[in-house]
């Protein structure tokens, strides 16, 4: 598991860059072992690497701001309410460790406290953005068949990975055997559904904790939030809620990658140390420091 490889090889590379697919192919194709190159490989690896001090500066800059990627503006308590994120399961299904996050119980149905959800969601989105900014591999995991297509297409469109099929034991803990030697494991696992189809905690929650991989997870009132690094208490059963979360993660990851490309381009142009940090609130706006930057072309 050498992380120094320039081209991360998450799965066996047997096909060209045009045939990129989300990881975790259906079981008919050899038991969950997909063969695909990631969409990320056909991207910015073409440009020459930056000088180490500049790249260190790029990496350290976002950590100094409280909300570098401005994730707060992407949602509000009202938008969470409209997407029915506050609806939990019945009181009998309640997990003991979810009680701090529950506002109350209305006629037997648990209502999740959206103020707390907003805080947790902001932390989770911020963490995701920073991981994406640093070029981390993100894996979306869910075992809900109703949303499996949505999650796979979200992951595909933001250039990350998804695993919404049967999770083979040892996929994370025994990766060299199952996926091939020198495989880079994900740097972040995002759970849209923490439970599997028999209402038990998904194996990947425990496995990610074992492999010291941070996790972000949407925890409903019947889930165990203990092992999840950044839990987000919320509804994981209603389509509007899951669509909202998918859209939020997608926006955040795309925004972070775009920001990274901009900052790298900026530093490359300026060459010398001491660049102006790009305006954190407008990732799409042209940065003030670029002088000869009219011909800058961002690689897609």
């Amino acid at each position, binding site marked *: 598991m050498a992380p120094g490889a320039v081209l991360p090889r998450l799965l066996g590379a047997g096909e060209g860059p045009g045939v990129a697919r989300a990881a975790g192919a259906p079981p008919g194709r050899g038991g969950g072992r997909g063969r695909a190159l990631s969409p990320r490989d056909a991207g910015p690896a073409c440009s020459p690497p930056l000088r180490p001090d500049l790249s260190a500066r790029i990496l350290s800059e976002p950590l100094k701001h409280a909300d570098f990627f401005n994730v707060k503006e992407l949602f509000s308590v009202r938008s969470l309410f409209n997407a029915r994120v506050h609806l939990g399961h019945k009181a009998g299904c309640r997990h*003991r*460790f979810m009680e701090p996050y529950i506002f109350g119980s209305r006629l037997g149905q*648990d209502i999740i406290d959206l103020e707390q959800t907003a805080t*947790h969601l902001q932390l989770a989105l911020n963490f995701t953005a920073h991981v994406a900014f640093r070029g981390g591999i993100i894996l979306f995991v869910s075992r809900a068949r109703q949303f499996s297509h949505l999650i796979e297409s979200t992951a595909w469109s933001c250039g990350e990975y998804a695993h919404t099929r049967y999770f083979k034991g040892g996929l994370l803990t025994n990766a060299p055997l199952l996926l091939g030697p020198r495989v880079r494991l994900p740097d972040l696992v995002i759970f849209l559904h923490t439970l599997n189809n028999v209402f038990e905690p998904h194996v990947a929650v425990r496995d990610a904790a074992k492999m*010291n991989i941070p996790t972000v997870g949407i925890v409903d009132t019947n889930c165990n939030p*203990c092992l999840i*690094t950044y*839990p987000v208490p919320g509804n994981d059963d209603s389509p509007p809620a899951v669509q909202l979360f998918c859209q939020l993660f997608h926006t955040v990851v795309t925004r972070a990658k775009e920001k990274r490309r901009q900052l790298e381009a900026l530093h490359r142009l300026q060459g010398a140390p001491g660049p102006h940090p790009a305006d954190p609130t407008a990732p799409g706006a042209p940065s003030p420091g670029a002088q000869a930057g009219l011909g800058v072309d961002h690689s897609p």
Partner: protein
Amino acid sequence: MAGSRLETVGSIFTRTRDLIRAGVLKEKPLWFDIYNAFPPLREPVFRRPRLRYGKAKSPTQDIFYHEDQIRAVQQLFFTPFLATIYNWRFSLWCSVFSRKFYSAYGSGPKAFELFNPNFKSTCQRFVEKYIELQKLGETDEEKLFVEAGKALLVEGVILRRVEKARTQQEGSQVPQKSESMGVESQTALEENPPLNEVPQAQHLEAPGEELKGLSPP
């Protein structure tokens, strides 16, 4: 690359930090600095879910509004199972009032449109009228109930009393149908003989409810 697979011992952060400090893990993982800068609200330490024993109850509270007293929870605590969910004091108090919207009129003439976020059901309009009249100074609940119903009638909403079709003696029962009030107050308690078996209901029937003297079949 070294690592620690003890997910039940500390959090991923504490384990990684200690491995780095000990010099076993040579490289900082990608997420380490981010976690350091933005730690979660609760450290993700493993906890074993334990059952609650004895009289320990979960601290989650029921959510009730003042309007619920008008809407009426009365029919619900007839089933002993559901009665346990409610705070028993509230349901006791609630049952003292015979005039409740849902027990008298069912869910109302208009179907509930759940896709519309600003939907106002008949019950909600009734409740709003009731509160308006209450603010004007009226205190007697029965009168308020009647007046609110009349106000709705003026607006064109016709409220039909619910036929209690559960018992065999339905045919011999005093007619309750027809539009609106002005009809004798009949509690839902009277209509269902099985209710008499519920001790709570029985206890509450006593204080001044006018029984129609129905004999069980």
